């Protein structure tokens, strides 16, 4: 490969790494799942920085926190807790659901 291609690759990698490396953690967010409903069902996070949700499943059955917008599939067993890590998000609305009870288990992450 010629040096110019290397330089381009190196720049691209730096551009990709730099923003996530500079980002700080924001305050932890707690969600409880009870009777197959998320509480709170609407969560606000800072845009462009990673954040963390602690999901407590107060139901007796397992649930899968599922969001194609957030690119997350996380199973949380009944009566257990799970950590859901959100990537740095561009401002916008990111719906999520409990895949096993999607009629009631619906929520949204709002990055702003």
């Amino acid at each position: 490969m010629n040096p110019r291609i290397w330089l381009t690759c190196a720049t691209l990698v730096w551009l990709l790494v730099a923003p996530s490396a500079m980002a700080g953690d924001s305050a932890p967010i707690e969600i409880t799942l009870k009777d197959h409903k998320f509480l709170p069902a609407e969560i606000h996070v800072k845009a462009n920085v990673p954040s963390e949700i602690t999901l407590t499943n107060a139901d007796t059955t397992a649930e899968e926190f599922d969001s194609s917008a957030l690119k997350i599939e996380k199973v949380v067993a009944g009566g257990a807790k799970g950590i859901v890590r959100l990537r740095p998000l561009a401002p916008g609305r990111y719906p999520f659901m409990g895949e096993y009870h999607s009629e009631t288990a619906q929520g949204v992450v709002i990055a702003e």
Partner: protein
Amino acid sequence: MLASLLIVFREVIEAGLIVGIVLAATKGVAGRAIWVGYGIAGGVAGAGLVAAFAGRIAASFQGSGQEVFDASILLLAVLMLTWHNVWMAGHGRAMARDMKQVGAQVAAGERPMAALAVVVGVAVLREGSEVVLFLYGIASQGGATTTGMLAGGAAGLAAGAATSALIYFGLLAIPAGRLFSVTSGLITLLAAGMAAQAILFIQQGGYFEYLTRTVWDTSRVLSQDSIIGRMLHTLVGYSDAPNGAQLLAYAATVLTIVALTRLERRRPHSGAVSRPA
């Protein structure tokens, strides 16, 4: 009932696509049905175990057990797919030539079958454990809807299996001479997609929080939620909003498999398979 049909259908089709590719890639290999059967049976048994111990798995690794587990079995599948393609690069051409006179090469075809059985097992285990958890949740709630939901699940299983069979027969329509290069290409992309998925799980587990930024977003063009988006996700690792680490993992896997298969093709092989081209 419709909800459970859809969920089971979705999971079955994801595992079924992989089974379909494996079956097409091993056309003419003696005993392949048995190996794929082992893979499915092992996957189903594993799915039950994973579902039963979901809580304990999740609680390990400081709460990142599920992510570590998912990433590990995906990377195992990537290794097995790589092994298969490299092996095929050494033996495949001769195998395609000798398809009519089934002989030693085909018997030797059992070697990558063990690897592919593992891949089938991993696919069934991953999707199956979600189905088991879902259906168990329904069954444990009891009530009048349970029967309907379980019937929906059974219908979803049947529909998923039928769709997978369609994929398999579609692949078989490819002329035999070309089938192996097509399936090898598909397996390369399948492996790359799994590697990208594994990286996502590693990041979810909090172990590699670099390059997490979304590089592009094509969710408006083709959502990963749509059936086509999901199928492409399974087949070639389509993601409507990939992050940098996923793209790197994808590219690195493709490059590694291509490089290894080229090396293997150049290496002289002993025995019946080496013939002047």
